[in-house]
């Protein structure tokens, strides 16, 4: 527990100070959308919010993951601390603690996002019962995607000295992720863009009918293939970056 507690001491509130504003923006956005709901919105509010949340997470979280990774890795680079830390603890432990710290923060973020979104719905007067399963799928996939992006960003932060480059990569990735949403569901090309894996958690497809000017939500089954690929990518990236971290001389 000591090394993990050390990581907490090192970061202080650095990670929360990154995540809290993102959470605030997302909640303000969804809160604003949920205000004064009409009867249809009251009946389908929570389902509608899954698509909004998916979009907002895809926009904000890739950059957030990049900033988190940059903060965690750069404080060691800036302070030349690896050559001291690696005489006191295993490199592997250091890597694992950083990953665990980021994962626990992201877990709290997604949990808080879900709970507060539920509260927003209650405040707005949604009558739809909370689709816990859909949200579990959405946020679970979001968490795994975000963790994957964090690991990739860790690699970029380790590899590139100038920490602006990893942030640019995160930003560009965010755009790529958004564009990938326009690809047909289940498209093979989607799997090449990890920034777009958030869409794998979507439980509904929004179909806009121009004639009736109506939006219809179509329930879609969970993309199992996508889920397996996401999990495989997460494990592979974790092992590869861990290996790179161990091999990197200090």
């Amino acid at each position, binding site marked *: 527990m*000591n*090394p993990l*507690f*050390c990581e907490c*001491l*090192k970061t*202080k509130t*650095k990670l929360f100070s990154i995540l809290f504003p993102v959470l605030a923006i997302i909640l303000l956005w969804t809160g604003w959308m949920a205000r004064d709901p009409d009867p249809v919105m009251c009946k389908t509010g929570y389902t509608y919010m899954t698509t909004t949340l998916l979009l907002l997470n895809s926009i904000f979280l890739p950059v957030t993951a990049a900033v988190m990774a940059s903060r965690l890795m750069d*404080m060691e680079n*800036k*302070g*030349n*601390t*690896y*050559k*001291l*830390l*690696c*005489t*006191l*603890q*295993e490199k592997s432990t250091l890597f694992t603690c950083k990953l665990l710290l980021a994962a626990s923060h992201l877990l709290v973020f997604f949990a808080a996002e879900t709970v507060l979104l539920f509260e927003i719905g209650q405040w707005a007067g949604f009558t739809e019962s909370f689709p816990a399963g859909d949200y579990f799928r959405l946020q679970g996939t979001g968490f795994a995607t975000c963790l994957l992006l964090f690991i990739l960003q860790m690699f970029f932060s380790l590899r590139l000295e100038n920490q602006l480059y990893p942030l640019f990569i995160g930003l560009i990735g965010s755009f790529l992720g958004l564009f990938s949403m326009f690809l047909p569901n289940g498209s093979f090309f989607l799997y090449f863009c990890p920034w777009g894996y958030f869409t794998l958690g979507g439980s509904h497809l929004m179909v806009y009918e121009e004639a009736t000017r109506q939006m219809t939500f179509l329930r879609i089954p969970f993309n199992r293939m996508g889920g397996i690929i996401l999990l495989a990518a997460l494990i592979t990236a974790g092992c590869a970056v861990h290996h790179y971290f161990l091999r990197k*001389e*200090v």
Partner: protein
Amino acid sequence: MQYAIETSALTKRYGKANAVDNLCLKVPEGSIYGFLGPNGAGKSTTMKMILGLVKPDSGSVKVLGKTISPKNRLEILKQTGSLIESPSYYGHLTGRENMQIIAMLKKVPEKEIAQTLQIVRLESQQHKKVSHYSLGMKQRLGLACAMLGHPKILLLDEPTNGLDPAGIQEMRELIRSLPSKYGMTVLVSSHLLSEMDQMADYAGIIHHGNMIFQGELETLHMHSRHQLLIRTQDNVNALQLLQERKIPCKNKGGSLVLAGLSDERTALLVSALVEAGIGVLRIEEQQMTLEEIFLNLTGKQVSL
């Protein structure tokens, strides 16, 4: 003699170049060992290999009689403290918070933090963010982190780098006091030879990754060849006389420069000069400085 650190044929290659080549370093227990060499000689690489931060291509490292392996590395290193190249710190944290992290990783009780901060005289600055520290203060914090837990061995790589003269003096005195006060063995690297002259008991000189001298500092000084400078009333005839007696010498700057002679031979030489009617004005013995010895050994101008 017991050695705190012992390396055997330690080698590290970067590409085709040997950064460290078959190095056998022996640091006696309780000593201050000055590890000397010009920039890029392989000092830091050697120290990193001792600490297991760099994997050697061949050779082994023994610390306190135990051969270091990936399995026992951390266990052995618990008895060491290090400050490699530049101090390690978290700028956004205070000095004390930095120490708390190291204390936690070393599993050292927190009360030792205050004691160590007192030794390096940082106790009044402990609640200041390290990013606001001067370089000297950061170096002292680095030393405090290394000393935390009273390790048996300290490895300090150029600890006076970037310090002002007062800071250098302070650091030197502090390092000098460590073996007697705390029973520590100190391996300190530097390219400042004069500094080692005032600090170390033993010295090792590394050049192009090879150890070219290792032993007591006094022995190193004995390597210095004495020179005799003789000033006479007639240097031309004196030079001729010396050459007739097959004593190698040269006329340089108004003096005759001879390689070191024994007292007896010097007395005979002076008598011979006086008998030949050449007045001896001055005889001066010159000893090589540590810098000159170093230059002699490495054939390279040291960076000072």
